[in-house]
């Protein structure tokens, strides 16, 4: 029953405040209710009103009505403190599971200053921010990650009780942050069977001294490892070039899911992740083989990303 109500609520929110990279808070997106402090204040006013009636005291009546009227004024001020704020999602990069993902958010004020806006995901600490009048305020929110795959963020709650704390105005926004979470790396020895020639000890050495395999230069392409850039040529003003090495077939390593000896799939993927990082650190070419996925051996930032992405999404539905 509760789950159904929750689902209905989520659906209703999705229709009312559809996910968007940027949005402006307005009356359709802002909810407002008296806070507990506000309810307590109303109780106080009731007691004061009874006092005014019993003592037939005009000035106590006057004070009570002033404060009641102030309550009404506070409703609008609280609403206006949140209204017309423009939110814009910026960035959000991939992290490994267990890390905090940084999410960029820019709040913009059209005209008025917006004070003490609190941003928070359910169960997480709130971040308080002031937005200066007619200006922007950029901030980075952090959200913990638990498992690999596309991080599905709950709606971000942006609320304010300013100025008097008697009302809480809030909105629940989905800023459509797309964050890929890679599996949490698990350190494990590289698969022995896959090591070529069984001479692991010489491997890094051979790699670093692989000058013999140097084939020439080609124009830089995004994704090429920085270590292979020909800085000397670049400093001569000949443009950015990458050194091309002959890919020694016997030295490329296949990272295969079958070779990972974890307790379950997640741990195996974690091991593969660890291996990918290890291979990158050692600048050795590697291929990735998962059931239904085959990534030819290569090396470099782009290759690393492709592999990690495959590992993150393996067996999961890709996000639309």
């Amino acid at each position, binding site marked *: 029953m509760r789950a159904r109500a929750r689902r209905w609520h989520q659906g209703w929110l999705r229709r009312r405040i*559809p996910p*968007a*990279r*940027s*949005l*402006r808070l307005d*009356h359709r997106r802002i909810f407002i209710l008296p806070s507990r*402090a506000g309810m*307590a*204040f109303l109780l*106080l006013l009731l*007691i*004061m009103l*009874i*006092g*005014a*009636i*019993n*003592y*037939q*005291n*005009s*000035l*106590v*009546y*006057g*004070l*009570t*009505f*002033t*404060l*009641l*009227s*102030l309550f*009404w*004024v*506070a409703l*609008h*001020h609280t*609403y*206006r403190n949140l*209204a*017309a704020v423009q939110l*814009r*999602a*910026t960035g959000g990069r991939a992290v490994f599971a267990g890390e905090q993902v940084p999410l960029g958010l820019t709040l913009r004020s*059209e*005209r008025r200053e917006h*004070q*003490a806006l609190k941003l928070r995901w359910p169960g997480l600490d709130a971040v*308080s*921010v*002031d937005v200066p009048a007619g200006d922007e305020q950029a901030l980075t929110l952090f959200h913990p990650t638990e498992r690999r795959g596309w991080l599905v963020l709950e709606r971000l709650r942006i609320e304010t*009780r*300013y*100025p*008097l*704390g008697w009302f809480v105005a809030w909105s629940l926004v989905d800023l459509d942050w797309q964050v890929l979470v890679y599996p949490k790396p698990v350190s494990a020895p590289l698969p022995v069977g896959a090591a070529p020639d069984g001479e692991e000890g010489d491997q890094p050495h051979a790699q670093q001294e692989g000058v013999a395999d140097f084939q020439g230069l080609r124009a830089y392409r995004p994704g090429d490892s920085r270590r292979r850039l020909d800085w000397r040529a670049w400093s001569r003003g000949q443009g950015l070039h990458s050194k091309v090495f002959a890919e020694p077939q016997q030295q490329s390593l296949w990272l295969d899911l079958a070779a990972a000896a974890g307790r379950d799939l997640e741990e195996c993927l974690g091991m593969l992740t660890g291996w990918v990082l290890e291979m990158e650190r050692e600048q050795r070419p590697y291929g990735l083989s998962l059931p239904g996925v085959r990534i030819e051996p290569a090396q470099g930032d782009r290759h690393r990303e492709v592999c990690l992405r495959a590992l993150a999404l393996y067996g999961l539905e890709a996000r639309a």
Partner: protein
Amino acid sequence: MSTALIPRNALAWLLGAQVVVLLPHLPRLPWWVAVLWLGCAAWRVQIQRMRWGYPGRILRAGGLLLTGVAVFVTQGTLIGLDATVMLLLLLFMLKLLEMRNPRDALVVIYLGFFILATAFLFDQGIPLTLYQCVGAVVLVAALIGLQQSPARNDPWRALRSAAAMLLQALPLMLLMFLFFPRLAPLWTINLPSAESRTGLSDTMAPADIANLAQSPELAFRASFEGDIPPPSRLYWRAMTLSRFDGRVWSQDRLLEGRQPQAVERSGAALEYQVVAQPTGRNWLYSLPGSVSDSPELRAMGDDTLRAKRPLSSTFGYTATAYEHVQRQRDGLPDDERQRLLQLPEDSDPRSRAWAEELRQRYSSDAELVNALLRHFNQQPYHYTLRPPTLGRHSNDEFLFDTRRGFCEHYAGAMTFVLRAAGIPARVVTGYQGGELNPRGGYLLVHQFDAHAWIEAWLPGQGWQSFDPTFQVAPSRIERGLEEAMREEGSFLADAPLAGSRYRDISWVNNLRLTWDDINYQWQLRVLNFQSEEQLALFKRWLGTADWRRIGVVVLSLVGLVMVVQALIWLRPRRLSGSPAQLAWQRLDQRLGKLGLGVRAGEGPRDWQARLRQALPQQRAAIDGFFDRFIEQSYAQRQPGEAQAQLQPSLQTLLRSLPRRRPPAPSQALD
């Protein structure tokens, strides 16, 4: 929230608010209360500066216990309004020391609002009311400080916002004040004890009223429907004194307690309104034979009016007096007659002998009374604020030896002689005359207008009033005490600062009367605005006293104010910027609903391309708008000319847009 610290701004304003809120109460409290507050505030500041810690549990419990004891010792009780307010004030201070988080601070602020209200139970003057506005602003500023981000450090801004919000609250407050139905008290309550004030007492001994006549304080104000009667008619009765113990005249509860009897009223009606200053007693001031339909007061058997509750604050009432009033013309009940002839056996033998002599000379009561008045008029009696002290037989000494006295001497002696001669008589105390405030057209009656005169019951005429003082000093009745005392120079001799002394300096007098007029209007229109006045207002404005119709009118008025305010506050923000920017924003808003709003970092060409893709049927309109837009934004054309073309193209595009988002085109982005 509960673990958060109290922001600096909030604490600053909170301490400020405590000073402002406590100050009006301090004069009524022992001196150590102020010292205690200073101690608590200093401690709290040290806590904030992380120098000192919070007091421990034992200290807090001890403080609470001591507070209770202190209140009991100073007030003699723990219940009752004075004790409750004092307890509240002490808790308000002590709470500072256990204020850890914003929630505690909220409790202190709410207590502050409550204490703000209690001050009005003790004083309702204009100065205090204005002062309390400051208190309200500071309390609201503390509330704002509590909500501000902790890092903010601009306390004046909080104060400005607080003042602005309170001003915005005024229209609705006025409506509620005027129209909220004034209900009768829900249960009986104890009123604040009146401080000892100068004023009439319920007994009268020689020199009592002469002392009172040194006081420039206000007793009450009165206004009339129509002309103000001449001073000789302005005998304001407060009470009658029928018991005499040889020295002091006092009230006879039995005679007052009776129902008013056999009063015949005729002639022109004179409606008047009185606003009495608080006395802590319940007597009121009325002209002879007055009737009142106010439910808050009742008529007594001796033709005076009493309030049902002691006056702890200003009290207003209306009454009607008549030109001709005859009271108990057909006779007095025997027991009443006996009580009105009562005299102590062994006092004033010379006066008794004189009374018997007069009785033998005049068989008619009326002639005897006139003979007495003539006696005061013709013999060398002297009217003075500095009468000599009198011994055991005060009437004898006054009548035959000193012959110098104030009104109470004349009234007491005359009543004594009449009673000794067998004529029922009593002393009446109250006020006589009053000062006209020409600005407001009302009378100011001061304590120095206090007066005593007599009433005698004459066969065939009933009760008749006589004023022996008039025989001695007619100027006292016709032109007031100052005139009567001009020769003696004793008017307000003990009160050098009293405004009434400086009537001769016209600008001082003007200032005094203007200020008094403001005060009187305040009392009439604000303090005295209770159910009667409210109903009268409804009748005048709405022509009805039917609560249902009033309700409809009131609710629609309140609703109207609320709607107007809401429209002002919530009106859609006007977008700012150049015409091109405005057009861009409008398009963005409209397309945002279709999920096609401009993306972060997207330029006009990119957006245009994306829109062409998503809305193939509107391509012409899209191109039309974007071409104009780019022309205006980037080609330096005359603004007016470009705008003339931009607006229609925007309208065309907006009109052509579909209501719902079109299905995404199958092909991917190019």
